[in-house]
């Protein structure tokens, strides 16, 4: 029973949910962002956390990254790589007002999910006889994830006053949200790893991850070409 439940929960994480279609900034947040003036530390902290917890494309990538990481030290290392990557481009992107197409960036984020599922299956060794450095990959894809975060904030003309502080609050919130989501994910995956089904179903799960990545990419590319 627990086996089935755990498997289903993990599979659900990998499948697109209706709620997830709203990935972006919802209306209440939008109204707040457009009206606020000056430093609003806690609100931006909250928005950052909420964005990460509901950011299923970011979370799917993280699930893929930690899937076969068994030691806490490794988990910490890879998550830190991801954090450095996305924080850099989030701050840089918003502050330098970088103009990148959100659909393209989100499509690349979708691709990062495909990459991780494929890599978890040992796909690179099998197909290309080469294993791309996973730490570098997480760092570099992290940069793209960060641009994705930046474009969502950039959709609104944020007040210049207090922007840096608010941005740092947002970034901090993202990390808090990431921490919370990761805690949940780690609890579930560690419970699952105790069961024999983990080895058997890891292939299917990473296949589902790849599939989710393709759906994400398709969704974003369709947006790029039609809107």
């Amino acid at each position, binding site marked *: 029973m627990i086996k089935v439940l755990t498997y289903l929960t993990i599979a659900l994480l990998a499948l*697109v949910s209706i709620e997830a*279609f709203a990935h972006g900034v919802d209306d209440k947040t939008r109204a707040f962002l457009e009206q606020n003036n000056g430093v609003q530390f806690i609100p931006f902290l909250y928005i950052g956390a909420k964005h990460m917890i509901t950011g299923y494309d970011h979370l799917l990538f993280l699930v893929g990254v930690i*899937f*076969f*990481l*068994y030691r806490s030290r490794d988990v910490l290392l890879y998550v830190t790589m991801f954090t450095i990557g996305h924080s850099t481009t989030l701050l840089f992107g918003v502050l330098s007002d970088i103009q990148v197409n959100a659909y393209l960036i989100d499509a690349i984020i979708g691709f990062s999910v495909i990459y991780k*599922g*494929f890599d*978890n*299956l*040992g*796909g690179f*060794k*099998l*197909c290309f006889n080469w294993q791309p450095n996973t730490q570098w990959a997480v760092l570099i894809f992290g940069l793209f994830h960060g641009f994705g975060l930046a474009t969502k904030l950039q959709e609104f003309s944020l007040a210049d006053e207090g922007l840096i502080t608010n941005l740092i609050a947002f970034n901090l919130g993202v990390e808090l949200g990431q921490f919370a989501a990761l805690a949940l994910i780690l609890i579930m995956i560690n419970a699952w790893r105790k069961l024999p089904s983990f*080895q058997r179903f*890891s*292939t299917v799960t*990473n*296949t*589902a991850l*790849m*599939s*989710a*990545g*393709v*759906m994400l990419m*398709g*969704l974003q590319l*369709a*947006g790029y070409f*039609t*809107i």
Partner: protein
Amino acid sequence: MQHTVSTKTLVKASISAVVVAAIALVTFILPAEYNIDPTGIGNKLGLTALAQAAEVETTSLETTKGTDEFQTIEVTVPAGRGIEYKFYMKQHEKMTYEWLTDGVPLYFDLHGEPEGDTTGYFESYVIATTNEMKGSYTTPFEGSHGWYWKNKSDKPVSIQLMVKGQYEVIGLKQ
């Protein structure tokens, strides 16, 4: 760290991943998000309604806000009655207009009422009796601006009103 699967497994996995994604995209995701429905299944499932509702929301928000192109509004004045059709405009906003009836002349008063006013004060920009008129005006104050038309004939009269500029439609006030 991770175990490597066999080539056969990898190929099966990759293909099934793409196939499942393609099906999900074509039958659920694209219809619901973008109203793209090549199989028609999205429509049958009612998902295309989601995309269409989003579209309607954005266009109707745009038209009530005022446009760079003429927006045509049809108004009917009942026999022997007067009506008002108003627009909410801020101070120093401009409206360009043209209106015509089916030939019957109407008494009208193009005027503005200040926002928040309780004295009943209004300022008339044009008062005349005619069956067609065109021009433009720039509001001296924020408030509700537009036409009072009086139909003194014994049959209802239709007016075709065309407006463009910076305004929000309030509409008919009887």
